[in-house]
């Protein structure tokens, strides 16, 4: 059964979620961005340029890899990995930065800013800025600067200025606040490349559209490999860009179950987690209404996750809608479980996943054994684990 899905509405609403909740100075640039985006989305020259960049610069299509040994070991469904880790710069983030940077260039913007958590989006932004010769400033929480120092170095090497944000909890949400403050100050020449499906409209829809290449390819590749649609999709959810990128092209295929995996940190019951869909409440932050981690007074509470990329108190508004409508299921995985997923994929398949993606691996270890051997799961392997080597070595008591 197929039912037409055409979210968001014209004002960026996914049901009660999404929208445009920003200070007045940002209304004109957001309107300008929305108009430019709608225009270029329908421009075959723009689309051809984007497709060429995705093919020759990013290295798409990324393979859909059948993890046969791991599937056998788990004894259930056949597991396929969508290898976004093999993209240039090592994660799915580049799909979006290539698109937004092309848009920035068309709009005549000379300066690019971005926020980053794990540093993958920052690296992907710095990369494309270097290629296009644009000035690039990346905001990163001071805590994340410390735990993702490799990526900080990569960004600097690429010519970006990395600003360590010392306010609030010094993580991704504070980096976003600071990037918004920069944008409001430099609206005339600056394009803000948001890395996830959050922010004010049109960002959630635009980032989704750029990331949905993941799901479009996966669908085609799955049909080719198995002759049918997958039975389940699994992806980690911080802001939710890799998950929506995989899910979106399957939304109307009702037989395909979707699992978004949030970071449970020390466990949802401890309060030390980053799982707003599983344990938060609707509210407004960073330009949109969505599920948030906040207290009864509406103050945002600090989040916790072993993975910097999932350490965010909000989530894309489309995920909030998919949760409420029941189209997607949102589950959570603790730090400890994520580490099991990390080691399992590394040892079983010789692929070292990012700690973010390891959450999706860990959930698959629970899901696959409950499914039949002729059923199929596609996991979005959204990033590679190179950036996490220091974190992992430190956990094992090894000095690199």
């Amino acid at each position: 059964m197929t039912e037409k899905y055409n979210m968001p509405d014209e004002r960026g609403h996914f049901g009660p979620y999404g929208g445009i909740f920003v200070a007045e100075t940002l209304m004109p640039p957001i309107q300008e961005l929305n108009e430019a985006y709608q225009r270029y989305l329908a421009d075959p020259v723009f689309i051809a340029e984007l497709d060429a960049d995705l093919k020759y610069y990013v290295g798409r299509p990324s393979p859909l890899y059948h993890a046969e040994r791991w599937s056998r070991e788990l004894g259930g469904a056949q597991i396929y990995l969508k290898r976004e880790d093999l993209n240039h710069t090592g994660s799915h983030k580049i799909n979006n930065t290539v698109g937004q940077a092309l848009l920035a260039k068309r709009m005549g913007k000379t300066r690019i800013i971005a926020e980053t958590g794990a540093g993958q989006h920052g690296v992907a932004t710095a990369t494309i800025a270097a290629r296009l010769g644009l000035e690039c400033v990346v905001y990163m929480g001071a805590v994340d600067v410390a735990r993702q120092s490799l990526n900080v170095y990569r960004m600097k090497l690429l010519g970006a200025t990395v600003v360590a944000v010392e306010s609030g909890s010094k993580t991704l949400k504070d980096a976003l606040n600071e990037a918004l403050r920069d944008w409001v100050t430099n609206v005339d020449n600056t394009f803000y490349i948001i890395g996830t499906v959050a922010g004010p409209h049109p960002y959630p829809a635009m980032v989704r559209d750029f990331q949905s290449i993941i799901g479009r390819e996966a669908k085609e590749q799955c049909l080719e490999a198995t002759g049918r649609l997958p039975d389940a999709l699994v992806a980690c959810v911080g802001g939710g860009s890799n998950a929506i990128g995989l899910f979106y092209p399957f939304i109307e295929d009702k037989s395909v179950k979707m699992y978004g995996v949030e970071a449970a940190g020390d466990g949802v019951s401890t309060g030390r987690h980053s799982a707003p869909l599983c344990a938060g409440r609707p509210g407004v932050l960073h330009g949109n209404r969505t599920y948030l981690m906040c207290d009864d007074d509406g103050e945002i509470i600090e989040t916790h996750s072993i993975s910097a990329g999932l350490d965010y108190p909000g989530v894309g508004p489309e995920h909030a809608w998919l949760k409420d409508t029941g189209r997607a299921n949102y589950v959570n995985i603790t730090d400890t479980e994520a580490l099991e997923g990390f080691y399992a994929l590394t040892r079983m398949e010789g692929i070292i996943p990012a700690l973010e993606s390891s959450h999706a691996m860990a959930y698959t270890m629970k899901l696959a054994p409950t499914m039949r051997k002729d059923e199929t799961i596609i996991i979005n392997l959204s990033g590679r684990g190179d950036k996490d080597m220091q974190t992992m070595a430190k956990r094992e008591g090894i000095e690199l």
Partner: protein
Amino acid sequence: MSRLAARFEALAKAGRKALIPFVTAGDPRPDFTVPLMHEMVKAGVDVIELGVPFSDPMADGPVIQRASERALAHKMSLRRTLETAIEFRKTDQDTPIVLMGYLNPIEAMGYEAFANAAQRADIDGVLTVDLPPEEGLECSALLKARGIDPIFLLAPNSTDERVKKMDAAGSGYIYYVSLKGVTGAGHLNTADVEHKLQQIRANTNLPIAIGFGVKDAVTAKTIANIGDGVVIGSALINKIEDNLDDLDLAKQEIITLLASIRQALNS
């Protein structure tokens, strides 16, 4: 007529400009705010903007961010900010109070519960930084029904169309953000403000208060003369931050600065 409308009308009649201080409720301690508000009234302010602390003040510069952090460290909240206003009202029934903050605390309380609570606290206006009229009509209607003015922002890049939108959606006054940037920024250009005000005036009859980047009596006077009033925030909060170990001195320095601005505005 609302207390704000009456206040601006009286000021216009007297040929005076409104002096509007902004302070964050509960900064640096909950018991500091009400006495400070009374002292500010004595120093000649016309309207008080009371900041509701928020964990993620995206439109604010570092000074007001830190004010929020200090207040939140004492568990200040929207609910306790309303209690602060009630406390102030016990001995001052004349000075209009405008709550200024971000949407999420209001979302958490619920729009209707908030509107009722604001009415009980005898609040005169509500300015929600991240709630443009496109998303804010439900909340504004609830406030207006209770005689509370929803106050909206305009910015240097606002078009005629948006000025008209604010004119239709807002009441009390319009807060003109004098520069592209965050609160307390240092690049205020008075010629630009003057030029922009002509465009705004052509599209609204609401009084216009101008804020962001006003630091001293000279700028305040220039800015106030262009609009109907001037908002001063970060410069006051700096006095708190500079004197955290001597809050009496902090209060005194705030009052001295406001008195000098009042004098400049009147001269």
